[in-house]
């Protein structure tokens, strides 16, 4: 499954790259991109564990950039 999330207050391009790296390392994630330009995050991961992975992704992103908010719809 592939899903895109909006990011609010992502203001550093370096952080975006770090977030991307961290999410890619999560178990079950096939691909992830954090776009500083469009302020969006795309996660591609196993269907079964998807919700769990998204939760973890939010956690790692908070670690990198606590000011950045991820809109979960």
């Amino acid at each position, binding site marked *: 499954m592939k899903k*895109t999330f909006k990011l609010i*207050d992502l*203001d*550093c*391009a*370096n952080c975006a*790259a*770090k977030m991307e790296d961290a999410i890619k390392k999560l178990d079950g994630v096939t691909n992830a*991109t954090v*776009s*500083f*330009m*469009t*302020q*969006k995050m*795309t996660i591609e991961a196993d269907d079964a564990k998807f919700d769990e992975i998204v939760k973890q992704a939010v956690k790692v992103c908070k*670690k*990198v950039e*606590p*000011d950045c908010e991820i809109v979960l719809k």
Partner: protein
Amino acid sequence: MSRKQKKTLRRIIIAAIVFAIGIAMGIFYPESDGVMSPLFYVRTFLLIAAYLIAGFDVLLKAVRNILHGQVFDENFLMTIASIGAIIIGEYSEGAAVMIFYQVGELFQSVAVGKSRKSISDMMDINPESANVERNGEITETDPSEVQVGETVVIKPGERIPLDGVVIFGSGSLNTAALTGESTLRDVTEGDEVISGCVNTDGLLKIRVTKPYSDSTVSKILELVENSSTNKAKTENFITRFARVYTPIVVIGAVLLAVIPTVFIGLTSGEWQWSDWVYRALTFLVVSCPCALVISVPLSYFGGIGGASRHGIMIKGANYLEQLAKAKMFVFDKTGTLTKGSFSVTEKHPEGISENELLSLCAAAEQISNHPIAASVVKTAKAANANNEIPKAENAREIAGFGVEAEVDGKKIHAGNARLMKQIGLDITEYEAAGTVVYCAVNGVYRGYILVSDEIKEQSRSAISALKALGAEKTVMLTGDRKITAEKVAETIGLDEVKSQLLPDGKVKALEEIYEAKPPKSTLAYIGDGMNDAPSLARADVGIAMGALGSDAAIEAADIVLMNDNIENLPLSVRIARKTRRIVTENIVFALGVKAAVLVLAALGIGNMWLAVFADVGVAVLAIINAMRCMRITQQ
């Protein structure tokens, strides 16, 4: 400015005022600087207060990131540099560096935000709402909630929210948002309309034929939004580079602080830390790779945004990068270089007028369903003022030969050379690019007309523009007969033709062309998305033309030219090249300035102020430069 940015601005202003008072004290009461006096403590207090007001969040972030195991980030570097400055007694320097760093960061954040917004606005074709007619009442809803089969009302000036068919009214649609060309298309009841166009006049009611998620607008938006996920190689390189750059500079800083001091200390016996530590701290300030990490993707984003304004949709920065390197261009013929519709292109009468020849042929051909016959009839009708052609009697089609009919009492034969031979006429066969229709009246040969696929007016200029841009080879692939293909290629100015290809032969031909490709260059394939998806996929860059409303082409291609104008191809190449140039400029500029400052700092010439400029100043300049990618016009 966002709320967060405004808050930062307020903080910077307060810090700057406190800082200014501290500096002023140093000027009016020189004794407060350096001498241990009450005034010295007041001044020091003011400067440290300014420092903390400006930079407490940086300090906090640095501590937090270290706890998370992320050591080398910009916050950490700024913290070490400024605290270091304070420890060696440079209070004003420490505070100033922090204030300037924050000003730069704020400026950078505003600039990036602005650029991002102006690019996104340009690409924004999203209809905000749809006026749906339900039970005789018009309600405004979200386009995604409208069902297929419902009726949507579009007032003049509004954007069509979903694909559909006009069921009431008529008007003119402006397709500028989709194709980049401001052309008006008249629509009336029964016509299909696509979302994203703007209704310029007249009230329209449409019956929705596709849900929002399948409508043209969302297909395009999806394409644009996903474009930033396909990163260019340069972009990935910069990210990797950033990861090693910072640690290297930090190690350099440590060495710079320790080695000379120890060396001088051991040789002369005097241990002078502050000078070399100051130089090392300056190192730290420039060690952030921000300018690169921001400006490279922003340049690509700008290029993609600028292209979209011309109706060129690029699916990712990587394709922009590939296109910039393209030296070979392979074209599909029909629909790409030619219009894909047949018409009469030449008339060679013998003993009768051109119009007479055309109308006689058309009159006879009326009964035939053959596409060639249909195009003869169409051309003849268009050539005639009252849109009419003579009636034919006793008409019959001779399969594989042509037609025979009586027009105004004259016996007409129209068809191929074999037909002429069959009725006993000895004619010289004419070799031409297209289908030749010979005509005989009452058994006397009266000339021929040539029906062929018309070449697009812009094809020739587009090819020469490509050559001017350094295209080494332009090739056309077609299933047409050799003679037709060669004639077309010659007219347009192509270097090579591969004709008589079966549909599956195109990819094979493409493979052969690949072998002659110059090293380090790429090959672009340009097709109309019909039957050539494999070729679009095989090429380094697949470009689909005239894709408005064709989902298959949008899927298969890497770059989509929304309108039918092939001149957008050289334009795309120019955008790709300009973007590449700006990316290179930014990389060279940012690294160059940083390297220069590192050298100056190591020699003790540069100070921390210079370093702050090298860090944030360069980032801002690079962002401004990146925005140039957006602006490019058709020559």
